[in-house]
């Protein structure tokens, strides 16, 4: 049975290599929708035109596909609402030195 908690745990393994922090603690994951064996991850990036766009989207797809019971993954990268540091967790702030 797929659940959101296990997907979030898997997404902790996807690290933005420039900032060196995982995308969950960076607050980049906006939503997770599960429909049977298909998972849709709605997320953003720290800046439009981020050079890591494809790599991070690929990492998200792979990390979720590795979970038992997941057959298909859709990654939607959106820019609205724009990312702000308010979305980061305390761990993310501490790790990246965000004010």
């Amino acid at each position, binding site marked *: 049975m797929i659940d959101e908690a296990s997907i979030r745990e898997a997404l902790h393994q996807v690290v933005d290599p420039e900032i060196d922090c995982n995308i969950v603690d960076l607050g980049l994951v906006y939503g997770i929708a599960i429909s049977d064996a298909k998972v849709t991850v709605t997320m953003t990036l720290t800046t439009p035109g981020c*050079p890591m766009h494809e790599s991070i989207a690929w990492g998200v797809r792979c990390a979720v596909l590795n979970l038992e019971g997941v057959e298909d993954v859709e990654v939607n990268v959106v820019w609205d609402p724009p990312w702000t540091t308010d979305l980061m967790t305390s761990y993310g702030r501490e*790790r990246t030195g965000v004010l």
Partner: protein
Amino acid sequence: MPTKRAAVADVHAPSVALPLQFILTGIAALLAASVWLVVRPIILAGYHYSPEVLAATHLFVLGWICSVIMGAMYQLVPVALETRLHSQRLARWHFALHVTGFIGMVVMFHREDMKQVGHFGSLVAIGVGLFVHNLARTLARIPRWNVVAAGIASSLCWLSLSILAGLYLAAAKCWSFSQFAPLAQLHAHAHLGGLGFFVMMIVSVSFKLVPMFTLGEVQSVRRAGWSLALLNAGLAGAFVTVLLSSPWKIIFALVVAAGLAFYGLEIISILRARKRSRLDWGVKYFLTALVLLAPVLVLGVVLAWPGLPANELTLQLETTYGFLALAGVVTFAILGMLYKVVPFLVWYASYSKAIGQSKIPALADLYSHPLQAAGYWLFLGGLLTASAASALGHDSCVRAGCVALLASFVVFAVNIGMVLSHLVRPRIEPLIAHSALQTNTRPLP
């Protein structure tokens, strides 16, 4: 690698080999030019209108600066502006023409064979034509124009004019048809390239890169736009007045100064509003380069002052002005950005397919931070020593400064070598559970 349905969203993916070719060529030219300066410090300690100075300058400008900027632009422009490069095939032709052309130019300048300089310069010009065409076609399909795109388009125009002015200079030397003073033509050509292409490019891309690396954002698009507009207007006027040796060039020097003042204010605002408190060495290199714009600007205004006597000191100051602009501002900025671009290219080639599935290094893990710091201080010390010695025409002190600069560039090359080693031996390890990671991982130093 999962076997279920997965594919990379290959929207703006860069070709790693293409920019790396240009960048590695640039680093080789940087080391060669530095060794040349150590062996022949008279290049900086003497009068700058000589075949050897022209040869060394073109090795530095075309071999180092242009190679790296062009390579990085093939990578950054499509990514930063969210589009795709028009043609990689044209870019490969550009590389072949560029390398053949600039090496030939350097050799022929040294031999004082201006006819052959013109021939090899034509190869460089054809390459630049392909480069400008390629990027113009790329810019033509970006989804939305902004201050970054406008600045890049401006810099491409100035680059084209600079190359045409260079060819005109070579032709005028061969056939003596020009009515302009040779030194005035040279200075006008140098400003088109140095201020129009290099500084304009640095200013433009920094509106994207500084916010990206500091987690900030442009604070005033209007102010950023004014900085570009004033730079463009100032340079257009400066080119004409320098070419005509007109006393009005001071007006346009002040317009350029106003543009850079707007730019400086915007960068300070971005940094004040940034979310990331720690600045890494790459960003520190880049920001130091921007600080160095101030003394270059002061020197530029002084040298443009009407009625300034042409004595030994002012002639040396012209050399110092060019050196500080090219080796200080432009080179420092490029080194800083290369600490971002090269690790990204290598990481992309070696690790992007393993993200989320294996433990892979972050970009900052690919190189040595102590070496970065050592390179920074060596560079700054060497630059200030060589600049002061150049102004005073002191041969031995120029050499001492250039030795420090060379040491800094060797340190840089070693660090880049460490980054490139990940292409040959990627460090991929099994994943650690996230909960364990949080418990064991301290905040980054």
